């Protein structure tokens, strides 16, 4: 693993892409790494495209610009593929993860010739099964951790359990669902690797 991993999130306002980037920063922080988690701010509103970013590194991070050549891209809403060039600058040594019921082979033609790895995950279906509602960010978080290898899966699961226990102390009924959504995502993320 190179010393700096850069991730770009694409979502729509209200879907939790910003929250997911902050949760990922938290999880990586808890494994002793240096992190940045930040959204790109502008005139946000529900449903409009938004971008968020993560840098995760073994050494202190000084740069304070957006990310133009990410190692990984996470697309929380597949309808963005029609309007946003989600693979812009994406390194071919890295990969893209898309929330869709489709397979990587079905998605490939929509990614303007991107030659890196393509992963898909039906985060909506997982979320609805595990949580009874469409909150795609928890499964997407599980998928990016699995795909990027920025931390050990077991440590990540342990950590998220503690984090959810804390975050949902007043709503313990959603802890189990979120944990289930994470583990289903880690299981079910599909790759186009032969």
């Amino acid at each position, binding site marked *: 693993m190179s010393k700096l991993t850069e991730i770009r999130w694409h979502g729509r306002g209200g879907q939790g892409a910003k929250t997911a980037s*902050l949760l990922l*920063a*938290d999880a990586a*922080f808890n494994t002793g790494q*240096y*992190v*940045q*988690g*930040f*959204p790109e*701010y*502008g*005139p946000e509103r529900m449903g409009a495209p938004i971008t968020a970013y993560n840098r995760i590194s073994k050494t*202190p*991070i*000084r*740069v*304070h*610009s*957006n990310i*133009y050549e990410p190692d990984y891209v996470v697309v929380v809403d597949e309808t963005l593929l029609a309007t946003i060039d989600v693979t812009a600058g994406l390194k071919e040594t890295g990969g893209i993860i898309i929330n869709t019921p489709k397979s990587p082979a079905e998605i490939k033609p929509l990614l303007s010739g991107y030659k890196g790895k393509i992963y898909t995950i039906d985060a909506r279906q997982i979320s609805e099964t595990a949580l009874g509602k469409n909150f795609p960010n928890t499964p997407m978080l599980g998928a990016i951790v699995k795909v990027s290898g920025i931390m050990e899966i077991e440590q990540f699961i342990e950590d998220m359990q503690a984090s959810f226990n804390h975050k949902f102390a007043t709503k313990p009924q959603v802890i189990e669902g979120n944990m289930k959504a994470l583990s289903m995502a880690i299981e079910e993320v599909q790759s186009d690797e032969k």
Partner: protein
Amino acid sequence: MSIRDRLSGNEAIAIAMKQINPDVLPAFPITPSTEIPQYFSQYVANGEVDTEFVTVESEHSAMSACIGSEAAGARTFTATSSAGLALMFEMLYVAASSRLPITLACVNRALTGPININADHSDSMGARDSGWIQIYSENNQEAYDNFIQAVKIAEHKDVMLPAMVCQDGFITSHAVENIELIEDAAVKTFVGDYSPEDYLLNEKDKLAVGPYDTVSFYLEHKRQQAEAMINAKRVALEVAAEYEAITGRKYGLFETYKLEDADTALVIINSTAGTAKDAIDALRNAGKKVGLLKIRLFRPFPKDEIAEALKHVKAIAVMDRAESFSAAGGPLFAEVRSAMYDCAEHPAIVNYIYGLGGRDVRTTDIESVYTDLDTIVESGNIGETYRYLGVRE
């Protein structure tokens, strides 16, 4: 014992405020500083502080309430951005001239016209002549460290001036990054109690605050304010030394990075300094002797020390994240170039206006500035000194 955490710049400021537990905190929300009073109001509601939290109907009233409470003898903080600072403008001068050491967290945001919520320094640069100490911060860690130190600098008996601690809106205020916090008790001990010599609630020694100042005295009062600002430079270094003793983190009037043997250098403020450091490392690996000077104290402006640090450099680019519409360059450029006037040999100095309204600055943008400086050194021709970085024309 330091506490390893990850916080946004706004959270870092709110926690510094909580650890100090001021007497009064009046505030009016404005993006991107809103989170600071928002987090602080939770600390009040949870009983984690016993601060009097005053909600007001405008920033003019927020600063007025700060003035009233600080004059009464109460340690007072506030936070604002952009148009909020502009609306305080009249009262900023009253706070400074009344010698009230209020500490303000300024989360830098462009001033409206056209409306924009993102980072630049037009707000705090607009207030540079108001008599406030100004301290700038590259990241969340510096915002936290600077805020704690600012309280102590402002309240020093040889200073007694208000201070604003600035950081870049969204870029650092809303970015979660690693940070080392100090334990609550250590912060409280470091800052100490606020015990002004004169204050309104002192019934034994009555005073008037803010009366009319006649022609016979106004000039002398302004000179006293100026003396206090001169003293602030020395006090800032004393406080930084004390802070280093408890944290190991070293602060000065400014920071230099690989400047000692540099042929070309940038002078820069806030978050872009971090981006520039990465660019410098890449250029150094390619054999280029490049460095930077990052402003920490802008008010007072450490002109002699800056000139001494930069005098050996062949060409300098002064980076302004604010327009001053002088048609001759930005505010930092004017000050740095003036500081260099007394050097026996002047480096070539040019100005770049950059990043206005949150325009992103990449390492490649910074590298292009060093390339321009190389051209100046090689050709001996400075060319236009008033330049824009990355503008579409």
